[in-house]
């Protein structure tokens, strides 16, 4: 068998320059999360398969066993491990957690959507209500802006709205599943062929067509009678009010056709988009039931931003500047060079010390190749 000296399918190295840029974004996001009171946690990156089995399809998890033969898997997202952690913790509620970590998702094809990528996110656990929802969405928007992405569109929906419509229209479970798929794919043909009243059809078709903010909510309000659906619309209205206070309404559209996995999400859901990447860079929502799997009952809301996709977007939008390395190189007489380099470093200037005894010409040539602006060649006692 041939030796494999390259990265596994779906994984890439972060090269100098890009990696430094990524770290800089991480620093900005870490700072943003901290300023909002979200404390960072680090989960092991390896979980028991049981932790994920209710939420993620088995074929999307990298699996292996521990020494006792128990099934393990790698970290798929930030939310589930955070919920597992919070469920077992005795910290005062609400609990505000954040993370910046690598995620591993098997079975996704290459080209920008990779098997390994970095997400930054927050989880607000043990908190209900529109103000909690809005806080998380506001921080999601701030996080995109913080990375330098300004062309941002955030679609906000509500899981409870569709569930309410299903009750109101008396759709069977099979029909509801079919309609849900149809709306998620904006496939109006299926809805038009349903055996329901014309008014109900119109309401369902509106889900695939309507966009806007308050006007979108208002256009649905007279069409719903189910209490859950009305509550969902009120929740969105309150969220919009708070986001308006941040001046963020310009980034937001209401999309009641946003169909996320109902096993996972229970209330508000949102996705963030920008130009030049075909996938959402932000995803989040309210998930009040997840912690029940772990024996707790914590209402929660959270979001994550893919740093990997954000960097791709920034590169394609010409907003990426690789972060340069050291800008000074010191060579020549080793003792003097070493002392000079140390002095520079103590002043906060990144300095490379030549440890290989290059001549002045060699040092200049190397500096040019590496893009180091300043060359200091020390002449020792001869000067």
């Amino acid at each position, binding site marked *: 068998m041939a030796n494999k000296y390259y990265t596994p399918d779906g994984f890439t190295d972060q090269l100098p320059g890009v990696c430094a840029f990524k770290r800089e974004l991480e620093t900005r996001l870490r700072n943003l999360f901290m300023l909002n009171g979200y404390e960072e946690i680090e989960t092991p990156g390896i979980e028991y398969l049981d932790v994920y089995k209710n939420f993620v399809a088995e074929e999307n998890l990298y699996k292996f066993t521990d020494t006792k033969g128990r099934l393990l898997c790698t970290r798929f997202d930030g939310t589930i491990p955070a919920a597992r952690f919070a469920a077992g913790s005795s910290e005062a509620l609400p609990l505000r957690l954040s993370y910046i970590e690598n995620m591993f998702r098997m079975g996704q094809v290459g080209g920008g959507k990779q098997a390994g990528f970095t997400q930054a996110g927050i989880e607000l656990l043990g908190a209900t209500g529109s103000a909690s929802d809005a806080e998380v969405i506001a921080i999601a928007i701030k996080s995109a802006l913080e990375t330098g992405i300004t062309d941002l569109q955030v679609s906000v929906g509500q899981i409870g709205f569709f569930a309410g419509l299903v009750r109101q229209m008396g759709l069977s479970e099979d029909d509801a599943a079919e309609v849900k798929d149809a709306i998620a*794919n904006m496939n109006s043909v299926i809805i038009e062929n349903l055996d329901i009243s014309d008014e109900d059809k119109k309401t369902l078709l509106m889900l695939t067509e309507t966009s806007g903010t308050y006007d979108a909510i208002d256009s649905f309000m007279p069409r719903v009678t189910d209490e859950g659906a009305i509550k969902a619309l009120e929740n969105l209205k309150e969220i919009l009010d708070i986001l308006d206070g941040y001046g963020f309404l310009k980034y937001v559209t209401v*999309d009641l056709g946003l169909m996320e996995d109902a096993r996972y999400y229970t209330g508000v859901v949102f996705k963030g988009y920008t130009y030049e990447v075909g996938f959402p860079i932000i995803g989040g929502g309210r998930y009040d039931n997840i912690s029940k799997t772990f024996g707790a009952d914590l209402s929660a809301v959270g979001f994550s931003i893919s740093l990997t996709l954000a960097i791709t977007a920034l590169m394609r939008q010409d907003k990426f500047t690789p972060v340069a390395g050291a800008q000074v190189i010191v060579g020549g007489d080793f003792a003097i060079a070493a002392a000079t380099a140390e002095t520079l470093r103590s002043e906060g200037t990144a300095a490379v010390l030549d440890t290989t005894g290059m001549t002045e010409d060699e040092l200049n040539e190397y500096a040019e190749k590496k893009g180091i602006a300043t060359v200091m060649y020390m002449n020792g006692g001869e000067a």
Partner: protein
Amino acid sequence: MLTIALSKGRLADQTLDLMEKAGYDVSAAREKSRKLILEDEAAGLRFILAKPSDVPTYVEYGAADLGVVGKDTLLEEGRGLYEVLDLGIGKCRMCVAGPAELKDKLDQIPNKRVGTKYPNITRHYFEEVKNESVEIIKLNGSVELAPLTGLAEVIVDIVESGRTLYENGLDVLETVADISARVVVNRVSMKMKEDEIKPMIAKLKIALQQGE
């Protein structure tokens, strides 16, 4: 600027006819050349000509904002796309076909071998719709040969007129799905370029209704 992925071949021409009817200037795309990207700056349109089975990929990754592709390809590739419009062109059926004597007796053959260009559609149909295990043999063309040579008992393939089947002593045994050309849209483009995409879909819809 909207990038539109067209399925190379007859479907591309039919799509352009429809776009023209909807009031779009598609002369750039009609240009007879070997260029794969045809751009019309003034009309704000860029066409890319792709192999049909690649169209969903270009659209899913956002390399194209929208595309026109057969439902067969969509079912087979199973991508996360908005499927916004049925163009009603390129109509045909995805069928299980085999020797005519198997008609109504398909379920009596255990552990069928199925020859097909569409392994995912075939697997989904037999495993999830019919709750049956089958052995799938992936072929790349002239699928009708499989039952004739004993490579497989039946095939799953597109049937338009059915002539090739009948002339070879085969027949349609079951219908898996109705197929026609669909307009698909990238999920991000739909949000970021809504002002360009939604009017285009509306115009195409009207052009379609006029054609009826």
